[in-house]
C-alpha cells in the first residue's frame, strides 16, 4: 500500500504536468517571454497547485505523523545563503534556454525523443557536479 500510494502520487504528478502544459517547452518559454509572446497559463499551474497544497499541507501537518513513516521530513533551514540564490539563478537560466525543469523533463522521457534524453542525461550530470562541490 505504501508503494502503491507513492506510485500513484508520481502518476498524478506527471498527468498534472502534461495536462497543465508544463511538458511543452514552448509554452514554458512563452510564459517567460513577458514582453513578447506572453502566455500566462503557467501562472495558473502554480496557482492551481498552491490552491490545493496550501490548505492540504496545513491539514496534513495537524496529524501526528505521516501514514507510512515515522515523522515528517521537512526542510528546516531558514537562513538565506549564496548557494540558494546562485543555484536558483543558474536553474532559471537553464529553464529559460530549454523550457524544461526536472519534473517535466523526466515525465517527457516517455515521449521517446532524443532531445529529451540528451537534456535528462545532461541534467543528471549537472546534479552530479553540484553534489561534488
Amino acid at each position, binding site marked *: 500500500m505504501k508503494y502503491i500510494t*507513492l*506510485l500513484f*502520487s*508520481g502518476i*498524478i*504528478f*506527471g498527468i*498534472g*504536468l502534461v495536462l*497543465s502544459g508544463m511538458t511543452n*517547452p*514552448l509554452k514554458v*518559454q512563452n510564459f*517567460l*517571454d513577458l514582453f513578447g*509572446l506572453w502566455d*500566462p*497559463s503557467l501562472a*495558473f*499551474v*502554480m496557482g*492551481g*497547485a*498552491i490552491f490545493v*497544497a*496550501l490548505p*492540504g*499541507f496545513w491539514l*496534513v501537518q495537524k*496529524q501526528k505523523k*505521516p501514514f507510512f513513516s515515522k515523522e*515528517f521530513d*521537512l*526542510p528546516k*533551514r531558514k537562513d538565506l545563503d549564496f548557494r540558494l*540564490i546562485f*543555484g*536558483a*539563478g*543558474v*536553474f*532559471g*537560466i*537553464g*529553464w*529559460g534556454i*530549454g523550457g524544461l*525543469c526536472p*519534473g517535466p*523533463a523526466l*515525465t*517527457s522521457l516517455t515521449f*521517446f525523443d532524443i532531445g*529529451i534524453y*540528451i*537534456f535528462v542525461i*545532461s541534467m543528471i*550530470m549537472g*546534479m552530479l557536479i553540484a553534489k*561534488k562541490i
Partner: protein
Amino acid sequence: METEFTPITSLAGGALIGLSAVMLMASHGKIAGISGIVSRILPPSIQKESIPFGIIFILGLLLAVPIWNLFFVEIERQAVSDNYFILGIAGLLVGFGSSHGNGCTSGHGVCGLSRGSTRSIIATVTFMFTGFLTVYILRNTLGL
C-alpha cells in the same frame, strides 16, 4: 511561435500537482521536489532509504504519458529544440542549479510557497527572474 492560453487545463493540471504533493506529504511525510528526489539517489552521497522512494515516484512520472495516451487523445510529442548542443547546456544548468540551490519549480515553487518558506520564495523569485531575462536575451538580442 505563439501558444494558446489555457487557463482551465493549466489550473486543473496545477491542482493535480498540488494533490500529488499533499498525498506525498500525508503518506510519506516528504516534499514533492523532483530535483531533490533525483539528487538524493545520486552519488557520492546516496541516501539508501531514499532509493526505493525515489525510484517508485520517478516510475510514476514515466507512466504518466503512456497512461494519458491510453485514456485520452494521444498527445503529440511536444516541440523541444532540435539543437542538441543547446539542450545539453540547458540540462546541465538545470541539473546543477536545482541541485545546488536545493530545489526547482516543484520543491521551491509549489511545495515551498505552499509552506510559506522564505528560502523558497527567494529561490522562486530568483529563477523566475533569470528565466525571464534569459528568454528576453535569447529572443530579442540573439533572435533565437
